[in-house]
């Protein structure tokens, strides 16, 4: 067993375990923190996949921004009676069937597929990619999508502010 494998097992165990805990925990704050833990472990997976920039981004965006934002909203909307049922009226059987069958199908597909690197890129297998390379790729090859994504963010920002302000209708 190599360190690589060990790290993968520990991290994926963390991801899945905290994911499951996220599903079952009764306390919404706990659920959010399990979610955060799952994402941080995922960041570890990214590190293992030689994507440190994305690992850092994962932490920055999910931990630094999204989780804090969600905690804010949870604090703002926390319900007066703490008796919160975890699962809705849909129950868990249907969703369980859906989720398990999805996983089974994916597992079947993955086990039947073979993956090989693109012929032109086999040379890069053992090479460590740098942030600079990623930056060049992003700002040269994918400049237009990048600009569009930036514009999308701007629109989302404005829209979120507008909706949250609740102007024009029953703002309480």
């Amino acid at each position, binding site marked *: 067993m190599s360190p690589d494998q060990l790290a993968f097992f520990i991290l994926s165990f963390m991801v899945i375990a905290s994911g499951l805990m996220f599903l079952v925990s009764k306390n919404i704050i706990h659920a959010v923190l399990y979610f955060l833990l799952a994402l941080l472990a995922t960041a570890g997976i990214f590190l293992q996949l030689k994507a440190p920039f994305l690992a850092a981004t994962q932490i920055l965006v999910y931990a630094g921004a999204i989780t804090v934002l969600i905690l804010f909203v949870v604090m703002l909307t926390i319900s007066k009676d703490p008796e919160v049922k975890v699962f809705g*009226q*849909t129950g868990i059987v*249907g*969703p369980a069937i*859906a*989720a398990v*069958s*999805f996983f089974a199908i994916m597992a*079947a597909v993955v086990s039947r597929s073979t993956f090989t690197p693109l012929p032109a890129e086999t040379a890069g297998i053992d090479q460590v990619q740098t942030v600079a390379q990623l930056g060049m790729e992003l700002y040269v090859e994918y400049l237009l999508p990048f600009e569009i994504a930036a514009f999308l963010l701007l629109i989302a920002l404005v829209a979120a502010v507008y909706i949250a302000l609740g102007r024009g209708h029953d703002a309480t």
Partner: protein
Amino acid sequence: MDRLVLYTILIQLLPFAAFTVLILTGRKLKFGPYLSIGAMTLALVLSIMIMIKFAAGELAPIDVSYEWFTIPGYDPISIGFLIDPLSILMLVIVTAVSLATQVYSIGYLKGEARLNWFYAAMSLFTFSMLAFVAANNFIQMLIAWELVGLCSYFLIGFWFTRDYVPPAASKAMVVTRIADFPMILGVMILFYYVGSFAYAPSFEIVATLPSGTITLIAILLFIGAIGKSAQFPLHTWLPDAMAGPSPVSALIHAATMVAAGVYLVARVFPIFELSTVAMATVAIIGAFTAFFAATIGMATLDIKRIVAYSTMSQLGYMMAALGVGSITASMFHLTTHAFFKAMLFLAAGAVIHALHTQNIFDMGGVRRRMKLSFIAFVIGALALAGVPPMSGFWSKDMILAQAWDKQEYLVFGLGLFTVFITAFYIFRLLFVTFTGKMSEIVEKHGHESPPVMWGPFMVLAAVTILIGIAGIPIGSWAGLGHWMGEFLAASGGNIVHESNIVVIMSVSAALIGILLSYLIYYAKVFDLMKLKSLDFLRQGAQNSWYIDEIYDHTFVQPTFSLSKASLTADQRGVDWAVNGVARLVMGSGMRIRVIQTGYMQNYATAMFIALALMVLVLGFAGVSS
């Protein structure tokens, strides 16, 4: 483009332009009728110009085609014009009669709200008729043919608020449609063998076909002509079509549209010529219709219907003339008849317009109040009866001479007898209506119509007297030429050999008929009503020999019974099944409705499970294949 073609297109487009403007402007256009009349005048002038040039020999017949679309393996379908003496003659007749009736209508339909629509339909009809006449292929001809029928429907139904009008209009449409179907079938068979719709190649290739096929095609085409020209046994719509305004009757149901059948047979005469059976059929049907309609005319009471039956009768003559092989005689009679019959209708219309009744026995002594109408009617009656020197005499005489010459004695005999009957019934009409004591209605309402009405029919009266010259058989009889025969020579017209015996026989038959009518209805020497033994004949004739009733019993009633049975089956069976299905769907819907819980999560769950199932199924399918 040839100037002749240009003129022909112009003649057709003028009424069409009038129609377009009128239909687009609706009721707002104040001078709508004058627009239509103006267009028609121009068309008439152009037509006469062409005719004169043709007669003078400055122009030659022309047959042009402009490609429309192509069907692989066949000749291109084209828009084309066949301009020869036959079509030019028809162009003149159509435009002239149309102009006369349109002018007349200004007075006749004064104050009608939908006057512009009337003129639009008249213009469209004229355009369709001209297009029909000028066509050089069957497709164009069929389109125009149906358009003509459609306009007839519009115009008969002009007063559609009167309850007897819509059935009459529908009847005209339906009966002619029945005839059209075999005709289209004929055209299709012809196309199957020929591979082209154009007239000229068709005539060439038909000659090579077996005689049975030719006969079939000819008979099928002739059935169409029977319907349009109101020949026995598909004549029943024409008397009912008198429900339309009188100018419509004059233009469509006397002069032009009903002549379309005759024109069609004349146009495709090369096909008929190849089949003796077809020719005999045409001759017999024509002669019989002439006789048959005339017998009904003797007993009918309605002034317009009498004239309508006379129209049928005269159309029978034209058909018979074709059947015995003379385009000249047929077309000559068509020409003269168009003018004198249009005039008769217009004059009768003037009487009706004044008196608001159509029963001749309600009238009497109209002569004293409506002198001009009387004069016109006398001229028309003489022409119809075939008394020299009216045009009707010359043309009818030409037909009889042709039959005599071809030794078709059955046709000749029926024709000669019909001359007698015709003279009798038209003078019966004349005497009963215009002479004798004035009835109350005439006292009260009788007045001469305005100039805009009597002008047209007086002009037509003049033409009626003069037009006979065109066919005077001067060559053999008085030392001059057969103008009509020579003019139509380019279209297959022949020169009919006259014989003095025929003239003497026909004139005497006509005079005997007039004399008899005079004795009974003017001098009142004896009362026909007292002859009880003739009652069944009178009853039969007055009821059009029960043809409508026969049709009613053989076709209409069984159809109704079948329809009722179908209705029952539909309501009890099909509706039950359909409603049952609907109820089943609704019931199951009410039960299934509950799965629409309104929770997005439920829907999403169902979606994903379904997706998984689909993938599974597809996966197995993919593995097995």
